[in-house]
């Protein structure tokens, strides 16, 4: 769970870096170059398998653990949830589910089109992610949805980052406060970075 999660956390940084190229006003040259590299490099192809594996493991184990956890308390309390805990940690399965829904949409919008499972919008090539992205973000509804989703992603990541270290036993009186700080920063910066793109497109319109 934690390992897969950490892998996904690293992946998100890469994903963000490429996405930010969308903002470069060069008509998508840099962006498409990066996408081209990502889709053709054999090493990345191998990594892609790991990435899907990581998602799958993370999601499956997440669901299995949640079922076990529900089973561990067959009779619930009448009054509960008053303990002083990190707020987001209580809703990982919920934020996770929301992200999963988005992930499906995301796949339908991009990856499946590349694979040819879903027809690309008219006049856009199968692999022209630049046009697809611009097209999607031109929809106000989609952009707002995307931004809201990023807030949930932030919630998920906020707990996830430091939690992964705790699960792997990487806890130290000196370094853990730094890890926690880094996690909080990450959970704000990364989703904010993603959200920035539709935001800027929205504003610039």
């Amino acid at each position, binding site marked *: 769970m934690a390992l897969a999660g950490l892998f996904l956390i690293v992946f998100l940084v890469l994903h963000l870096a490429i996405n930010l190229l969308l903002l470069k006003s060069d008509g998508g040259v840099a962006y498409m170059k990066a996408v081209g590299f990502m889709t053709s490099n054999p090493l990345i192809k191998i990594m892609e398998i790991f990435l899907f594996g990581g998602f799958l493991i993370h999601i499956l184990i997440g669901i299995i*653990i949640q079922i*076990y*956890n529900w*089973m*561990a*308390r*067959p*009779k*619930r*309390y*009448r*009054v*509960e*949830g*008053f*303990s*002083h*805990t*990190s707020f987001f*940690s*209580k809703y*990982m399965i919920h934020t996770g589910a929301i992200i999963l829904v988005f992930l499906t949409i995301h796949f339908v919008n991009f990856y499946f089109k590349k694979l040819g499972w879903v027809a690309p919008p008219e006049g856009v090539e199968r692999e022209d992610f630049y046009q697809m992205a611009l097209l999607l973000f031109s929809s106000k509804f989609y952009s707002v949805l995307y931004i809201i989703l990023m807030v949930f992603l932030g919630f998920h990541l906020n*707990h996830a980052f*430091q*939690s992964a*270290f*705790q*699960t*792997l*036993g*990487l*806890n130290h*009186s000196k370094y*853990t406060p730094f890890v926690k700080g880094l996690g909080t920063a990450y959970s704000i910066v990364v989703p904010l970075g993603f959200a920035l793109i539709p935001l800027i497109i929205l504003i610039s319109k």
Partner: protein
Amino acid sequence: MNFTLKIWRQKNARSKGRFVTYKISDISPNCSFLEMLDQLNEQLVAKNEEPVAFDHDCREGICGTCSLYVNGHPHGPDAAVTTCQLHMRKFKDGDTIIIEPWRARPFPVIKDLIVDRSAFDEIIQAGGFISVNTGGIPDANAILISKSDADYSMDAAACIGCGACVAACKNASAMLFVSAKVSHLALLPQGKIEAAARVQAMVKKMDDLGFGNCTNTGACEAECPKQISITNIARMNREFLTAKVCTQKKRVMAGGGI
């Protein structure tokens, strides 16, 4: 002070329970929570009703017998105390207090507010010890232990085994309890020797008993009457992972035939 109490009543393990409401008045603010229940029970006995069954023994916060999930908190709203050390001055006059038993699959209710926590004993029996017999022991000062290790070990060893961590955890996970014992022994040189086998045996037993998984929520730490830190959980995870990765395969040694 006057209170309205909503208490879980359940005749025995097999019967279905329900909440029953009681009123109690003239309670001194200096009275402990259990002494307040004592007074309720006195009144119930006077009315020839069966008193509320709840676990308690030392009443000084160390035996770990008392439990009670009070208004959404194991051991009540005050921090770092057991229910027996919780005082009524922590409540407001006229408060409604909801009292429930610990809820977890491995802690079945026996009667009213009493649950069976023998699962904890089973986890200790699985490996929460150092394998030495009585006698034939080297001098106590033959093992040097750094003060800091001894202190961290003591921090973990302060666990009273009350089960508040399980009760508080949204997943009914026993990780804080198990990790406290694992840490206590793994931090000491004399306990280090069989640390890898210990952590694997204890974690396996914990899983078999049906406790939930840790999702690092931290409710256990927040509610622990002895303020055991979740640093211990990280330490146990570390011990567990290294044990799983690094321990050699078990090998049956041939006997000497003496």
